[in-house]
Each structure stands twice: as C-alpha cells, then as structure tokens.
C-alpha cells in the first residue's frame, strides 16, 4: 500500500522531466545554433599530455604548442631548415660550443608582456629544473647554461660541440615562455589557460582534456610564422579513428590530421567531397635485429633478411601507397640521405643473394626466427605488415619465421633485452639526419637495447656532431648510413607520408605538408 503513492510521485517526476525535455526541444528548434564560419574544426586521435612545453614530449601536445608558442628558430611554411622566428639569427663560435642568438625587438606575449632575453633564459632553465617525467629535458642535455647579453641577445654554452644546435632550438624543449607567468620549477596545468601564454599565432582559450582545445587568434602575434588566415581553430579529440571518420563524413569536423588506418584513408579518398592530402613525411618504420642474440647475432643472417625484405609489397599492399619503401634510416628528402640498403642489397628482394650469403657463412637453413611486433602502438596495419614480412621470408625457404606480439606497455619495456627481432617506429625530435642516427647507432644512446656497438660508427657520429660545415657534416652522415647498412643491426623499411584529410570547403592543407611534419593551422582557410 505504501508503494503506490511513491510510484505515482516517481511517475509524475519522470513525466515532468519529459515535459521539460519536450518544451526544450520545441523551443530549441526555433533558434539556429550560433556558428563561427571561419573557424577550422580539426579532428585527431592524438592525445595531449601537457600544454606547458616543459612537460610534454608527444606529438599531440606539440601540435597545441605549435599554435600557441614560438621558438627562436622555427619552420614557417616553405622553409625546411631552421629559420629565424623570435631570433633574428644565431651563430656559433669556432669550436661549436657556444651559440649566440640575437632576438627580435617589439615582440609581445599574448598577455601583453614584452619578449626579452630573460624569457629565453627562463624557458631553458625551467625545462632543466623541472626535469619532467616526459623526458623532454633530454633534448637539451648538451646545454651547460644560458647567458643573457642585454635584453636582446643570449648565448647557449654547450658541454660538447654541436653543429645541430639550431635544430634543437626548434624543438619543444626550446619553446619560449613568459618568465613573468610560468613558474620556475613546476608545470602550468592544462586547464589554466589564462597562464598558458605564448607569442604564437593563437591563444588557447579553452581546453577540455581528452575532448577539445579551442584557439582564438592572438592579437599580439607578430606574424613571423605567417599571418593567421582563419577565425580560430578547434581541435576535437577522438579515441578511435573510426568515430573520427564518421564525424568527418558527417561534416561535424572540417578536417582530420592524425590518424586513420590505411583502409580508412583509402575509403576516404574515394568519398565525394573529401580529399586526402599527401606530403613528404619523416615517420619511419624499421625492424631491429639483436646483434647479441641468435640467430641475428650472425651478420650473414641479418644480411639475408636485408636481401629478402618485402618493402614494395608492404608499401603497396598494406599501406595502399601511403608509405614509400625506405632504404636507409635517414628518410628520403632529408639532406644527407643515401639509399644505403638499396645500394648494398638491391631495391627488390633477392632470394638468390640471401641464399648465397647464408651458404657462404655455413648457416643451416631454414633459419628459425621469432619476430616480435605490437598491435597497440603502430596502428592496425601492423598485423598485416608483419604477416607480409613472415610470408616473404618463409617463401624464400631460407627462414622459418614465427610471429609473436605483445601489448605496447609490455613490449616497450622489453625490446632488445629479450627480443631477437622486433618492430619499432620513429618520429624525429628534430628533422635532421642526425636524429635518425645517434639514437640508434651511438653506443651511448642506443635505446633499442639490441647490443649494437661500433667504434667506427661512434667516431663518425662524434665527428658529425662537431662538424664545422654542413658539407662536412652531410658527408659523415652518408658514411654512417653505409656502415649502418653493412652491419645491418636495423633494417629500415618504410617512410610514411604526412597525410591530412579535408572537406571540400577547406583550403591550404597541402601547403603545410612537408618533411617538417608541422600542421600550420593558421595557413588553412574555410570557404
């Protein structure tokens, strides 16, 4: 008997809610949604760890920072080498151990604070003081200290000679922040948008973690990266590319940058009103071979794998032409690149040569080889990619490949400590050949744990870092690539394109697709 009145109350409440909803819906239909016609709405599956540049080392965060901040040197559209941005120029001493930059005058942060050398020193010092767990501070590990010479000149004193320091000045670790706003020893929270001020093209006006970043044009921006050609940018974050694809097809978002699966790119390419834009890319994929563990500790086995590698098939069958075969760790298009593996092992797979090299080394065939890959870090195509590699090696009858996979959290922790042959990918910290060689082949910084050590390579890389001229440096880079191909501790096999997808009313995407791999949203317009 107690039940009925309560149920009645519940029903009344429910009906009231529904009535409210109906009234709301009816009222809503009478007013159009406010629209900002020239705002570009982008979708991405990237995530943002920290907007504060001292606390991030990932592409999603770097994309946000690109819109809000500047560096002393940057890459405006059409420039493929570090170009003066907040600096008017940088020069090194003869020993390449001190780089002095003169700064632009009259530049202001978005909050109106003037930009001076104090901001530059503050920015570098806080990266080193905070030592964020993202590891970003590692990029300026060669920096001894920063000294200011008046308001508009700074000198970077280095621990060892470094000819590529201008490239370091374009990285996240060298982002310039306002010393009056950013704490010396802690990160500014992502949602504290009032204090995330920079000199870049936009102001981050709203940030909802995991959902959305809203950018409005910075009234104090000096235009040094190019003028802002739209009314603002909204980046919408998606956890799955399939959902982002639907949003793009529906017109919820105007464009999408990073990242769809190869199949989704192919499908979008055939969708009316949508264009897939393609430019040179610098992301690479490679197979690491452990030189300490059998059977890949045998040079002949590594060479045989190099002879058999199905680069063309992977590029065309698995990636539908969105990647190109890569024959050196340094991607094609970067200064110093040589087709080292192509020259040593040929552009197409050769079973005969692989057989010969194994026979000469008295290696019993088929060689049993376990190849590891991860399904949770390099995209859905990894499974097909490694099935293709297995097929190609087994088809030669020289190898008997077993594929094994591990989830990224486990995989990334293990690498060469337990795996003999394993998949990895690389996105550069700075777009220079050096960043494709030192982290892999220098015995002091080889992160793959594949056991590769070469005195000759170490000496070359040391020389490269202190080279006096670009010509001398690139010559050394080429030699290093040839040694890398000869020793074959790593087999590079594809280089990805920079891909972005836009609806038909979006213009200017193609211009920003270049090897610097920067999405310059301020250059994009909506008609």
């Amino acid at each position: 008997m107690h039940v009925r009145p309560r149920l009645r109350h519940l029903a009344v409440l429910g009906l009231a809610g529904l009535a409210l909803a109906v009234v709301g819906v009816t009222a809503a239909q009478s007013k159009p949604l406010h629209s900002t016609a020239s705002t570009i709405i982008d979708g991405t599956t990237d995530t943002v760890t920290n907007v504060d540049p001292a606390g991030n080392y990932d592409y999603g965060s770097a994309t946000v920072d690109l819109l809000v901040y500047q560096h002393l040197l940057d890459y405006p559209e059409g420039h493929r080498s570090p170009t003066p941005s907040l600096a008017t120029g940088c020069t090194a001493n003869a020993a390449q151990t001190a780089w002095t930059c003169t700064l632009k005058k009259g530049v202001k942060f978005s909050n109106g604070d003037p930009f001076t050398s104090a901001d530059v020193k503050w920015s570098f010092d806080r990266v080193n003081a905070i030592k964020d767990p993202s590891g970003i501070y590692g990029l300026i590990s060669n920096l001894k200290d920063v000294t200011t010479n008046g308001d508009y000149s700074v000198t970077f004193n280095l621990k060892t000679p470094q000819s590529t320091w201008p490239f370091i000045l374009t990285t996240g670790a060298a982002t310039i922040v306002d010393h009056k706003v950013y704490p010396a020893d802690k990160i500014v929270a992502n949602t504290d948008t009032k204090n995330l001020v920079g000199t870049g093209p936009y102001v981050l006006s709203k940030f909802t973690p995991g959902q959305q970043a809203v950018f409005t044009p910075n009234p104090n921006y000096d235009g040094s990266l190019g003028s802002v050609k739209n009314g603002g940018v909204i980046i919408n974050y998606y956890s799955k590319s399939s959902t982002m694809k639907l949003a793009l097809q529906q017109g919820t978002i105007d464009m999408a940058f990073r990242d769809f699966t190869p199949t989704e790119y192919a499908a979008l390419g055939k969708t009316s009103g949508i264009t897939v834009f393609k430019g040179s890319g610098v992301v690479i994929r490679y197979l690491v071979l452990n030189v300490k563990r059998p059977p890949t500790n045998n040079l002949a086995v590594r060479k045989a794998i190099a002879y058999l590698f199905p680069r063309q098939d992977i590029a065309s069958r698995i990636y539908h032409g969105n990647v190109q075969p890569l024959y050196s760790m340094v991607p094609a298009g970067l200064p110093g690149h040589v087709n080292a593996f192509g020259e040593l092992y040929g552009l197409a797979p050769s079973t005969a040569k692989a057989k010969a090299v194994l026979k000469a080394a008295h290696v019993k065939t088929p060689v049993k080889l376990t190849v590891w890959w991860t399904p949770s870090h390099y995209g859905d195509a990894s499974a097909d990619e490694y099935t293709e590699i297995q097929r190609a090696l087994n088809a030669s009858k020289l190898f008997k490949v077993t594929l094994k996979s591990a989830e990224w959290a486990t995989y990334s922790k293990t690498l060469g400590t337990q795996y003999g042959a394993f998949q990895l990918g690389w996105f550069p910290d700075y777009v220079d050949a050096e960043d494709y060689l030192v982290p892999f082949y220098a015995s002091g910084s080889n992160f793959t744990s594949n056991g590769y050590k070469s005195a000759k390579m170490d000496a070359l890389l040391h020389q490269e870092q202190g080279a006096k001229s670009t010509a001398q440096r690139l010559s050394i880079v080429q030699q290093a690539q040839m040694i890398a191909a000869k020793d074959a501790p790593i087999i590079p096999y594809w280089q990805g394109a920079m891909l972005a997808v836009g609806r038909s009313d979006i213009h200017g995407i193609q211009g920003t697709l270049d090897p610097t791999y920067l999405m310059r949203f301020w250059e994009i317009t909506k008609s």
Partner: protein
Amino acid sequence: MGTQSSSLKRYALTRLALVVPMVFILLTLVFLLMRVAPGNPVSAALGGHAPPAVIKAISHQLGYDKPVYVQYGHYLGQIVRGNFGTTISDRRSVGSIILVNGAATLELTFFAMIIAIIVGMLVGLVSGRFRDSPLDTGGRLFGIVVYATPVFFLGLLAQLVFGTWLNWLPTSDQASPITQALMKTHTNIFFLDAIIDGNWSAFWDIVKHLILPATTLGIVYGGVFIRLIRVNVIRTLKEDYIEAARARGINERSVVYHHAFRNALVPVITVVGLQLALLLGGAILTETTFNWPGLGHELYVYLQNRDYAAVQGIVVVFALVVVAASIVIDFANAFIDPRVRY
C-alpha cells in the same frame, strides 16, 4: 512503530558497516591488479624513444621502483585523505576527472536507464498481458536479441544507419564542437548547463548527440527489464486479488493496468540498482564507440597508457557508485518490505 524504526536503524547500520571492508578489499584488488599487469606508465610513454637509463631514472622519480607494499601504503594513505592523486600521463587530478567525466557518464547512464525502463516496461507489459501470442513471442525475441547483442555492435549499427546512411543524428561526442566551445559549464552535465543558461540551441544540439548513445545503451539493458516485467505481469495476473477484481466485474484493461502492472513493477526497483553496475560496464564500450567523454572513455584511454593513478581512481569510483546504489536499494527494499530487515 518504535520496534519497526529501531530494526530499520539496526539494519541500516549493519549495512553501512559492511561497506568499509568491502571498499578496502576493492581498493586492494584494484591496486594489485594494476601492479600485476605488465608494463608501467613510463615505459608505455617513453619506450621506443628514450634510452633505458632515462626510463629507469623517471620510474625512480615517480616511485615505481619502490617495493609494492610501500606503494600500497602510500596509495591507501592518499585515498583515506580523499586524495585520488594525479594522473601520470597528463597530470590531471583524478578528482577533476571524476567530476568532469563522471558528469558525462551520469548524463548518459541516466538517460539510458530511462530508455531501458521505458522499453522494458512497454514490451514486458505487452508480452505478459498477451502471453503466448505473436506479440509475446516478438517481445521475448526482441528482449533476448537486444540483451545478447554486444553494446558496441549495436552502437556501430546505429552510427551506420542513423549517422552515415540517413544522416539524421550525430555519431559522436556530447555536443557539436562549436556548441562545446561556446558553452559555459556549471554542472558539467551539458544537458543541465544548457537549461541553466537558457541556451536552447545548445540544448537541442545536446539532445541530438544524446539520442544514439543513450538509446543504444538503454535498449541493450532494456532486455533485462522486458523479461523481468513479463514474468511479473504473468505471475501477478494469476494472483487471487486479480481474480477477485475480475469477479467484481472490473474491466480487464483496468485490472491489468491498475492492479497487475503496478504490483509487477515493485521488483524492478531492486533490479534497477543491480543493473547500474552492468550499465556502467556497458558505458565503457558505449562511450568509446560514441567518443562520449565519460569515465568509461577515460578508463579506456588510461588503461592503454598504464596510468595507475587514473585507472585506480576511476575503478574505485565505479565500485563506490555500485556499492552506494546497492545500499540505497537495500534501504528502499527494507523500507518497503519489512520482511527484509528481519
């Protein structure tokens, strides 16, 4: 009355006292499960990029190289102080995740529950009333099929049909990007925020975004209510008081809708509480499918990053919500039905 009230009080206190060991066991399990899972947040974030020495140094900095019992003590200490900590991967306070993303989950599950109850009541009532008729067969079949269908699959179908083919409804997010960018947040429940601001264009946009995810989740869980209500209606229709009502000449419609159906709804209260746990589980998949920024969506993202702090915080909140709901249901049952307290 005095005896009744003291027995209810005793029951309530006993029930509340049981919450403490229950939550403690839960916290311990969540902590241990995260530590047993291979990998850690540092290698997940930096592995394949940074040398092992850097990964080791950062793991040390974050305390992941400390013995598990030390980490456990620290973890419990923080929870007792009401501090769920800060996420490792993006330095968000877990408390803010619970508030912001929890609001999105609340919005979704609330409307999904309403849809589940409406679908369950309508189909269950019709099936029970017209037992063994084609309507009943159809209703039962519908109930079984929707309950057996994985929620993400139904979500994908809904996206395909209503989003891609018909282009009637948006397929992702809580609101369109422009609405979200311009909206002011008061409660973090978009639906309410739009009402508070009298922003009806945003309200309509939010409603449109809510339809597919809430209906998908609601229909799946409506399957349980269909079967439950059908059985209860059939059972109630055989009760003596129904026969007596019929004998008194009350028309069949009135017997069914005023007498049988109301009583058949009582057990639903209990099931609503139990369903909440399933609903939250389903919300993880629904939120991921529809890019709905709720706790389930965040859990999916943080699990991939092995973000201990975030996963622990979210799982604990999920569990606490279920515990709280079960207590409320127990109290409600005890209040309604005195037999429960004795």
